[in-house]
């Protein structure tokens, strides 16, 4: 179990070595999320269309270790963009991964860029 969590590490833009071409923008729901596969990883990507911004994080919820965060509802708490896990409504900041309504470990977040209607996720491996 810990092994799964360990494979997800927050990646800063300056550390990105690979910009992985995930999918076309149109593949993602507006103001919602979907999941992509990168090697053995599952990454949740969220399209905050209202704010014209995108976020990415691990798909696995650190609470019960299920691959579900991409199916969660997104929103904002005091200006911080967040996702609520569909299992038990644990909420996580999509800026720094912090658990906003409890003391679960933070989730890993990844940088996103949009070019030519395509969504790219930044990885360092």
């Amino acid at each position, binding site marked *: 179990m810990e092994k799964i969590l360990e494979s997800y590490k927050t990646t800063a833009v300056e550390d990105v070595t690979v910009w992985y071409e995930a999918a076309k923008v149109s593949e993602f729901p507006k103001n*919602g999320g979907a999941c*992509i*596969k990168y090697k053995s990883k599952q990454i949740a990507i969220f399209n*905050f269309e209202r704010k014209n911004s995108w976020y990415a994080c691990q798909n696995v919820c650190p609470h019960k270790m299920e691959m579900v965060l991409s199916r969660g509802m997104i929103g904002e708490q005091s200006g911080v963009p967040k996702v609520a896990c569909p299992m038990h409504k644990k909420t996580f900041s999509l800026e720094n991964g912090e658990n906003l309504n409890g003391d679960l470990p933070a989730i890993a977040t990844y940088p996103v860029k949009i070019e030519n209607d395509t969504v790219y996720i930044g990885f360092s491996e």
Partner: protein
Amino acid sequence: MKKVVVIGNGMVGYKFCEKFVASDKFNEYKITVFGEEPRRAYDRVHLSEFYAGKTAEDLSMSTADWYAQNNIDLHVSEMITEINREHKTVANHRGDTYSYDYLVLATGSSAFVPPINGVEKEGVFVYRTIEDLEAIESYAKKIKSEGKTQAAVLGGGLLGLEAANAVKELGLEAHVVEFAPRLMPRQLDQGGSDMLQSKIEELGLSVHLSKQTEYIQGTNAIEGLKYVDGSELKVDMLVISAGIRPRDEVAKECGLDAGLRGGVIVDNTMKTSDDSIFAIGEVALYNNMIYGLVAPGYDMAEVAVAQITGNTELTMAPYIDMSTQLKLIGTEVASFGDALLEGEDTDTIVYENKRKGVYKRINVAKDGSKLLGGILVGDSSDYNALFQIYNTAMALPEDPEDLILGSRGGDGGSLLGDVMDLPDDAQICSCESVSKGDICSAIQDGSCNDLGDVISCTKAGTGCGGCKPMVKDLVDATLKSLGREVKDVICEHFEYNRQELYDIIKLKGYRKYDEVLNHHGCGDGCEVCKPVIASIMASLHADTANEEYVIQDSNDRFLANIQRNGTYSVVPRIPGGEITPEKLIVLGEVGKKYDLYTKITGGQRVDFFGARLDQLPLIWKDLIEHGFESGHAYGKSLRTVKSCVGSTWCRYGMDESVSFAIELEERYKGLRSPHKLKGGVSGCIRECAEARCKDFGVIAVEGGWNLYVCGNGGANPKHAELLAEQIDNETVIKYLDRFLMYYIRTAAPLERTAKWLDKLEGGIDYLKKVVIEDSLALADELEAEMATLVDNFQCEWTQAIEDEEMMKRFNHFVNSDAADDNLVFVPLRDQKMPKHWS
């Protein structure tokens, strides 16, 4: 860095660590904790909830990595067997030694086992740790399988009664055996004990008072108790809960001063006879007393932390309050102050109501100046107020009996008057030592904005929880005094409650979440307001959950119920529970084809579990092809209308309950509401459909149907109340249309009909006026709205599988056709289940 070693990882030992972590000197110390139990500190106060389904993890006081995160070394399953005061070291059972600058004894207590012949027999247990509970549970299972059911609990005190309830929950006949002539002898007088006894006997427990056990009968395993008076009680199991004994062995061995009857002697700084060694919790003998409650233990932990970190001014109060309030076997019991006080300077006022099962006693100073103590059995709702009046020595009303009888002058005001009249140092939460001043200033200084903030920053209400209503009153009153309106709003994005939003959306005709947010809200919304607005739109326009799926709650978003491992369950509609053999075979084929775990639900349908997200549309294609449609088991909407077989077959049936149940289910299927809705139709008053525990229930009687509304199973069961009698099918439907629409319009989010009726001013009589007499002149409107919803029903699964765009959301990955490879199933009785969470 100074070394602090803590022996014992129980509630008080943990609290010591928690207080230390919060101290500003924490970085100057290194803490090492030894616990002999195999797990981290857990909540022993709520131990019996272990049988109610809570796991050891649920009861745990901290998360698994809390100690590591705070750089505390926790050694579980390690018993300290030696303290060397000269070298300032401790040694564990393996002989490893650890040095300390300060040593804290938080070894707690063990169950006291009286010296009765035969306590070593098989089937005799104590009630103290999770391991004890596990052993009791497995022994109970074993004897039940042999047809034996009698279990005794030795000790009628607080813990003994908890244990007796637990034994009863395990399906055994519980007998409480107490040496004293009354239950809870430390807290209750005879009158209080009598009332408690009759309440718990009503629930099927037996009480045996003034019984001294001479020996335990049986050869290997226990077979009974023989009392000194010659009588006996045949039992197959015994749980001893006759008090506690401090765990002071290791302290005594190293020569620390101890009391005659055990306990390590401490002064008001929690120091023992050795300046480097502290004792806290149930091992500490303070004022020549062992305090078996968690609140004084927590205070001791705080004092010890302060003393070690140099704040020598904080000491233990000279007098320790032993007031308690709790719910025992469903009965509220409280005692405070000097509860059993009698004497020349005291007047005792007693109120007893056997009909209602309530006993109240207060002890008042002869001159009427103050409240000295009291007892409440059967109704402790006034405990918080009485405790404050006692604890802060407030002036009493002219007629002190008003305190337990209520003012009969008629203003109906609360006992305390205004909570804000309490002095600032009034202790509101005794578990966490939080005063009124702490609570109010947390809001006044701007660090907290609402009840949730106050609870998380002061910890008030996180112990036994008894003070929560008062904390809420204080928070509301403080906010109000600052001119901040306390409004029941949906979330930070909307300054409206659900009913107001409903009216706005209806008036403006909004069809999109963003329209509502842009015009009437702020920010980007959240997981609270999105589903509320989705539900309102559905109730107003018969919108399905496909329309705007990103604002739907977890289950509605994928039209299925998400389960423990992130797979889904599928429930097709089977109206009234009637199904042809052909269709039943189709269900069997579908279950087999997709290898789904299959179970019959409580609502007379079939539930398939373990469907992956990407399998959902395939399964539904098959089901729809064979004439099934969505059962809306995932929605806050009508689930089922359960039926008994009625007069079509039953020799007692008064009417065709199945036909009517099918008609009602077909009418209201898909109806989105503030919470889920369930119905039932019974063909006679034997009530085989259990209609009265549903949101609406219809029962055939001579001359028509009786219509009941607002019942509930679930966590707070409630029987539905009679709305109308002996009415025909058309009238049932007319009243139901009105009732359901009125509920949908006015309820709060996620408020079931039972709770809604509880809060409805005027209750069922008012509801009758609205629904039957049309007192609000709304009936036509309500009926017309329902008619629109009924006419516009669409099966949302049929809609989803016919639309390519809508289908996209069921792919696990957008960039791959692969399925989620994280899923692991294990076999279970010829089917499968998800692997357990580790």
